[in-house]
């Protein structure tokens, strides 16, 4: 088995301690970069690696960094550690167990765009992780790896944490910035994009935790080394969060391009009780339902193949497995209820649409649907599409439309409720 690149703590015990991390080469890359590379060279190397954003959008990281104008200052870097997509738990493992690799990535990104202040925006539930990170940042300051005039250069850098307080929408980058500015977490109208007007109206890079954890190994070993993993257009490794009806749920670091079959049956050890697999959600709750036929199982999990062959984005690669025991009408009520709860209320199609989809899908899941309710649900979902300010509204319709399309009989067959009504709100 090859060694991990991102989940290195699984190979090196104690990697969450600064001494161990440094004994294993930690912060040598940061030192070398700050003392011998120009910011533009760092940016070009990351661009050449083909690294793409791991938060879901898959946008090329180096290109994103290159959008910051060099005639407007200060620049900021914000790490998105708001991990809240149902089925996603990869950033949490990095933050808990390999935090210094993430921090070094954040520091390298900051140097590349010459930001002197960077923020880590963590979801409020990561309260304990934030306390630990603050401690680790203080250690880095004492060790002279953060602060003023680093390694005798004229580069200064300070890191700060900021806790959210329970709002999925703050993972959307402009809502995150609003929240960091002390406002309601509601998305901004774009343009201007954050690269031009981001935090405090200054040019800002926002990168996911996993994306940043890729940066130190890329700059240590070079972009050619990185490109030996993954596919031509989706290079590198990815952490796949596997959950749902599998025997061994968990995070698996694999090259992009691994098949669903390998993830589910080799790493996840197959379906609970040997049941038949029914469907796959590749990007958490924000997914189309993929009918788990042989073609789907043999599809390569990279950004292109999943989109082209299965018509749905790979997103954050939060793979939720559904077996034959799962009723899709019940499932859709779950996802819709999530989005209804998390809609920020700013734009009407999302606020009203998720509310009404929740009313209808709850009736369907409770076996109290009237004739025409399934069509009505489908119709509401289609009226939300392409009309929302951010992706949340769009996400809320994906399981609904694809579910009705492929598993309509589930919506018409009443599932046996697992629990009595009183206790399930």
């Amino acid at each position, binding site marked *: 088995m090859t060694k991990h690149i991102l989940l290195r703590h699984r190979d090196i015990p104690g990697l969450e301690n600064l001494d161990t991390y440094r004994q294993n080469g930690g912060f040598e890359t940061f030192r070398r970069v700050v003392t011998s590379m120009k910011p533009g060279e760092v940016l070009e190397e990351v661009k050449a690696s083909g690294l793409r954003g791991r938060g879901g959008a898959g946008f090329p990281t180096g290109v994103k960094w290159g959008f910051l104008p060099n005639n407007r200052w200060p620049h900021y870097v914000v790490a998105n550690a708001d991990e809240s997509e149902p089925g996603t738990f990869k950033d949490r493992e990095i933050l808990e167990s390999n935090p210094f690799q993430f921090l070094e990535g954040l520091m390298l990104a900051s140097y590349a765009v010459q930001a002197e202040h960077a923020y880590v925006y963590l979801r409020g539930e990561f309260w304990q992780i934030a306390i630990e990170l603050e401690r680790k940042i203080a250690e880095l300051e004492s060790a002279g790896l953060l602060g003023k005039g680093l390694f005798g250069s004229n580069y200064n850098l300070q890191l700060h944490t900021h806790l959210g*307080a329970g709002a999925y929408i703050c993972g959307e980058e402009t809502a995150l910035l609003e929240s960091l500015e002390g406002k309601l977490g509601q998305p901004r109208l774009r343009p201007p994009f954050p690269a031009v007007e981001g935090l405090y109206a200054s040019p800002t890079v926002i990168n996911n935790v996993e994306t940043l954890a890729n940066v130190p190994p890329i700059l240590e070993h070079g972009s050619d080394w990185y490109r030996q993993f993954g596919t031509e257009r989706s290079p590198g490794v990815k952490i796949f969060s596997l959950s*749902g009806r599998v025997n061994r749920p968990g995070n698996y670091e694999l090259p992009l391009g691994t098949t669903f079959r390998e993830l589910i049956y080799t790493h996840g050890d197959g379906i609970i009780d040997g049941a038949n697999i029914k469907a796959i959600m590749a990007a958490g*709750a924000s997914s189309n339902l993929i009918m788990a036929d042989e073609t789907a199982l043999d599809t390569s999990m990279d950004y292109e193949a999943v989109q082209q062959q299965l018509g749905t984005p790979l997103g954050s690669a939060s793979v939720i497995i559904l077996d034959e025991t799962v009723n899709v009408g019940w499932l859709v009520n779950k996802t819709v209820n999530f989005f209804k709860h998390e809609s920020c209320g700013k734009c009407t199609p999302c606020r009203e649409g998720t509310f009404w989809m929740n009313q209808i899908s709850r009736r369907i899941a409770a076996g109290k649907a009237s004739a025409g309710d399934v069509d009505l649900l489908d119709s509401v979902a289609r009226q939300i599409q392409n009309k929302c300010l951010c992706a949340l509204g769009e996400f809320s319709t994906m399981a609904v439309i694809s579910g009705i399309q492929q598993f309509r009989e589930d919506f018409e067959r009443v599932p046996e409720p697992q629990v009595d009504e009183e206790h399930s709100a």
Partner: protein
Amino acid sequence: VNDLLNKYPEEIQTILSRYPAEQKRSAVMPLLFLAQRETPYVTQQAMQEISEILEISTTDVASIVGFYTLFHEEPGGHYRIQICTDLPCALRGAEVFLAEVSQHLGIGVGETTSDGMFTIEEVKCLAACHRAPMFQIQGDGEITYHEHQTLDSAREIFEALKNKARPAEEEQTL
């Protein structure tokens, strides 16, 4: 008099130092967490004090409290048991677990035990899908995760919390 400022002068300075001097408003969420260390919900007085520290209106502070689910406007129990029943957890028995906890404590979702110790809340994904059933406990200004839970393991946690909270309450009444 600003009780929050008097009690936590250093913490508040540290919080404010993270943001540019002219962007004090950014500190509203950290200060609300600080206020919830004092009481299990944000009081009117705390909102007033935070608005003074940050030079923004109390309405602005209140709107933040209303928007984010980890800030509470109502007292509730000393500890909030926040059980995830989102899709991935529900696929691994979270709804049954919620019903068991609910029956054990004799309260429904959103209700508080008669001794004021626990409130049960049903919450959205907490990034622990592979270790379901799970819940977090919010209380004493802290948030802690409890994963791979059964009713038995959860009962032990609840008992430990009761013992932890009682001496503190007795101290307060003295």
